[in-house]
């Protein structure tokens, strides 16, 4: 694994993000969305000094917006024929995928960093908020963002059409987000099914982190899903060589 190659590809993509209006639009929409939910959680009769109010809406916004960030990454390369040059450059497929993943993850991180004034306001006016839930809250958003981005890149590898890529990955992410709803469809006897779909659902793995509890199960879940989609994306690139 050549870190330099990953960095070069990531750097190119990050520059390209900031050179197009897309990244700014995504950031603005996310800020408005999460800001609204943070503000509304602060204007309840007995507001808590936490960022919990925007965690779940924020995660949902990430799931919807990340595919917009990632849809271009590989679909455009396929459409323009640049993928052929990239795949014949002295870099590995995995380095290409990781570079692109890193670039869009950086965009997610930057977007989230722009919301850091929420906790700042809490410290300024809220009177002694708990630091740990705030940290784990941001950690969970980063994890959800990374996951959304990995699924997004997977969708982008499947097609040369950006819209198709975005729709595919949003669909996949929505299934993962709402997977636990299907557990109600199963009869009471099918415990295994219920456990499985509950485990698959994103929201179930946010709960503990939102309250400041760092759980290995949750971390393993996110890391596994991210690694799985990156791996499958690399495989998809490789199938082009064998077709």
């Amino acid at each position, binding site marked *: 694994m050549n870190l330099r190659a990953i960095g*070069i590809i990531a750097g190119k993509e990050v520059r*390209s993000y900031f050179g197009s209006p897309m990244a700014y639009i995504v950031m603005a929409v996310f800020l408005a969305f999460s800001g609204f939910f943070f503000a509304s959680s602060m204007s309840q009769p007995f507001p808590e000094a936490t960022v919990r109010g925007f965690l779940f809406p924020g995660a949902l916004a990430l799931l919807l917006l990340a595919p917009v960030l990632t849809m271009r990454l590989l679909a455009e390369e396929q459409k323009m024929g640049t993928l052929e*040059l990239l795949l014949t450059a002295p870099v590995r497929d995995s380095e290409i995928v990781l570079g692109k993943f890193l670039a869009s993850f950086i965009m997610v991180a930057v977007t989230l960093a722009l919301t850091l004034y929420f906790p700042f306001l809490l410290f300024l006016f809220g009177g002694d908020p708990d630091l740990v839930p705030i940290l784990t809250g941001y950690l969970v958003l980063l994890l959800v963002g990374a996951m959304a981005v990995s699924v997004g890149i997977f969708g982008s590898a499947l097609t040369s059409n950006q819209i198709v890529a975005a729709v595919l990955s949003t669909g996949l992410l929505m299934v993962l987000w709402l997977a636990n709803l299907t557990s109600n469809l199963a009869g009471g006897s099918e415990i295994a099914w219920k456990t499985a779909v509950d485990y698959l659902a994103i929201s179930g793995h946010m709960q503990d982190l939102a309250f400041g509890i760092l759980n290995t199960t949750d971390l393993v879940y996110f890391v596994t899903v991210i690694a799985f989609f990156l791996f499958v994306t690399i495989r998809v690139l490789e199938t082009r060589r*064998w077709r």
Partner: protein
Amino acid sequence: MIEAINLTKYYGDFPAIENVSFSAEKGEVVGFLGPNGSGKTTTMRILTGYMPPTAGTATVAGYDVVTNSLDARRHIGYLPETVPLYLDMTVRSYLEFQGSLRGMASKKMQGGIDKVIELCRLEDYYTTDIAKLSKGFRQRVGIAQALLHDPDVLILDEPTLGIDPRQVVETRQIIKGLGGGHTVILSSHILAEVSMVCDRVLIIHEGHIVAMDRPEDLARRLEGVSRVVVEVRGPLREVEATLRQIKGVERVSRVGPEDRVRFQVECASTRDLRPVIAQTVTGKGWGLIEMQAGGLSLEDIFLRLTEETEAAKGGRKP
């Protein structure tokens, strides 16, 4: 520098190329000539490591393109058929990106960029967005990119496709200037282009190499006066009959306007028939108005070569 042995590639059940073997020495310019879909791009994609062959092996600069792909790729500059450009980048940032992908240090890269910018005459467009460049200039940026890291091997897929005639000439000059320092493989479906630029020509037809020769020899072999158009002032039937009787003539067919005695004479060998025809016609006391050696079109060449190979295989007709 390049060694391909029995390369075979199947897309599903369809054989794109079968048992393609060739080699290229250092500094040689080798042209792949063939119609669309003959397997030129497939062969190039195998050499560049884009996809592996179904069977056979190939080495570039001593590295196997499958088992040692990354090392092989370091020695290759590649221009795919669709020029691979990022439209949102400037010429400069594009070249910098390609250079760094190939592991060039920034100092060496600046020198390399200056060199290819000059060679491809892109000085005025250094900071222009690629989206704003015309097709010919985009092609040049593509060539510049392939040359940037000063690779031992250059693989150019249809480098003059779809650009205007003047730019075609310029592009050919650039490529011609590359021989010696680089081993160049280029593909084309234009016979004249390949014979002008290349030291050696490989003719590919339906996934097979049907001929491999120096352009001069190939021309002698193929373009020799095998087809002569002759116009005579004389009695139509008699002229036709006389032409048929000339030794070596295979076919005589009437061409051109009705009121003229004009024939196309074809012979199987590459022997130049013109002196004999001239002698016979003037010997009969007819006037020889015009005689013209008709070159073969690319289609004719393929037909002829494939017939040759079929014949070599034991007279089996396709």
